């Protein structure tokens, strides 16, 4: 299948390894990945911060750039969910990575091995906006040598929330400190999720407190091919 990749602004400029991993997983499964060069940002940051006109312009730009793409994938449930809410015609065309693999392509085992104890944080927008269901858990359970452990209070927000993390920094920090304590208590060496934005928040706090836990996007785990 030919799949167009929407990398997202953060994925392009801050966490390019997530995009590289996404390409690697899809190509390993025999799919062809394209990258429409005109893409930039879906406009969510502007929309969520009250700059509606700018957000609308960027969303319209997304619709133009991906106009002739039949299937679009993105390693961000937040951007995918937001774009589908604003342009419902994208349902069935725009997928978050785990949705594409499990629901569209019918694959749970992508041929990965990852010998670590992993905890999965269901991000708010993957739960409640993109509503990806159990797709990410099915993928993780099919990874060889991976020990998946439960996260207490898993459904609680990590405190990122876009500009919320700056405007309400104290509250945001209180939230991520609790989230990281819950993660650390599981004894996992890796925390994973479907959104690089939340992982920047969680990873940034883990790094600050010197915790021995890495924050990795699901795509990065799936990219580790079995020997």
């Amino acid at each position: 299948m030919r799949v167009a990749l929407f990398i997202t602004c953060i994925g392009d400029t801050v966490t390019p390894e997530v995009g590289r991993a996404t390409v690697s997983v899809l190509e390993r499964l025999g799919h062809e990945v394209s990258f429409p060069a005109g893409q930039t940002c879906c406009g969510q940051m502007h929309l969520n911060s009250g700059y509606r006109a700018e957000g609308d312009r960027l969303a319209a730009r997304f619709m133009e750039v991906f106009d002739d793409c039949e299937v679009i994938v993105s390693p961000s449930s937040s951007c995918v969910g937001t774009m589908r809410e604003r342009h419902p015609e994208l349902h069935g065309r725009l997928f978050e990575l785990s949705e594409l693999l499990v629901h569209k392509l019918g694959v749970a085992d992508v041929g990965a091995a990852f010998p670590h104890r992993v905890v999965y944080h269901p991000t708010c927008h993957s739960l409640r906006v993109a509503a990806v269901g159990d797709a990410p858990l099915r993928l993780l359970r099919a990874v060889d040598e991976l020990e998946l452990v439960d996260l207490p209070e898993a459904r609680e927000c990590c405190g990122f929330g876009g500009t919320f993390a700056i405007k309400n920094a104290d509250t945001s920090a209180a939230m991520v400190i609790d989230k990281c304590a819950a993660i650390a208590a599981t004894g996992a060496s890796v925390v994973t999720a479907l959104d690089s934005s939340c992982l920047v928040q969680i990873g940034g706090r883990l790094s600050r407190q010197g915790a021995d836990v890495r924050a990795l996007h699901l795509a990065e785990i799936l990219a580790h091919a079995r020997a």
Partner: protein
Amino acid sequence: MSESRQAFPAAAHEALADRRLRANLRNATATIRAKRDGVVAEVPDWEQLREAGRAIKADVLARLDEYLLAFEAAVEAGGGRVHWAADAAEANALVLAIARTHEVSELVKVKSLTTDEIGLNAALAAGGVHALETDLAELILQLDGDWSSHILVPAIHRNRTEIRDLFRRTIAQEPVSDDPRELAEVARRYLRERFLTARMAVSGANFAVAETGTVCVVESEGNGRMCTTLPSVLVTVLGIEKLVPTFTDLEVFLQLLPRSSTGERMNPYTSLWTGITPGDGPQEFHVILLDAGRTRVLADEVGRQALHCIRCSACLNVCPVYSRTGGHAYGSVYPGPIGAILTPQLRGIEHAASLPFASSLCGACYEVCPVKIDIPSVLLHLRAKAVQRRGGRGEALVMKAAAWAFGGRRRLATALRLGRLAQRPFVRRGAIRRLPGPLAAWTSTRDLRPLASESFREWWDHRT
């Protein structure tokens, strides 16, 4: 009741530093959340009930003029009197005038958010009338000169040791421990005397039926029913959005409300009264229909769904922001997610512009709302209004610059080059630990990932 009008981030900063408050809130919200989840899971048609609740409220708002007139006619046919109040001052003056007519210097009150919203107690006090709160938690706050931090559990920020100490200082006649039963007994003795001597009571209402003129109050303690049955004069202050069309519609809300609020299948006391009954209960009954900003909210197509709220407080209990900051940080009798959309609309966005931003947009509130208020969408709507009013400040310039940079791949490449140059002095071993200006708010508690030395796009271009 006093109100803090500090902006949310500053008020939250203070609240977050209060460790006892954090612990009290964490325990209380976690307990109610678990109870609510349990009893909601028992109801097989919960989603249909929510949809029914939403639809009834939407109908009420669409035909509010008709329903209000029908309600007025039904109340008056039942021997009650209806007054219309455009704002808080008018409503307070009406209550005070009724008290003066009956030469009352003290009245008893049913727990009511609406009368807190309009500052009734202070207005009555200024007119020489003492309004005694009879809900246990409200009484605790009144005795301590404190004010509510939760819609349903106003003293959620207090624990029983604090309450024991307060009672010892104020109303306890005998030694009292921090056993909840003993504490309740102290309050009971104190309140019973007042119930038996009070000649006038004031209530709010959970619901009011347009068809029949019936008023409904839902409570746990029975103190509300003491107020609505013993005194000879009863005044109900009713927000105009509290109507339901028919008596049968109560069936939906009396299922949704207790399960969402206290996590009970059914609340202990549901009082319903229609006009007056000669020889039984109050012989004079007044309803004050209160606007106080509600018609302005109604005029906003996106924001009006905030008027669906049945004050259950489920959104507070699941909110990751509320459950850490508590209610006082919201500076309003309506805290939490619902307060963040209701307060700026009732008061005007210019008086509460920080509230719509007091959310990470996690969506937990929308998920539990028994009448399906899409709180995240209304927050975004109000954020846009707040930004429009505020105009070109530093943040607006940054947002405009970002929008420009995202306008095309060349612009983005330029912005990326500039960003890499700007961040260079701050990157240490692959992380940014300290930044100046507004971004210090991030780095004070978290490291920041720097911009990548090779963007995805650069990698892709080199690859092919």
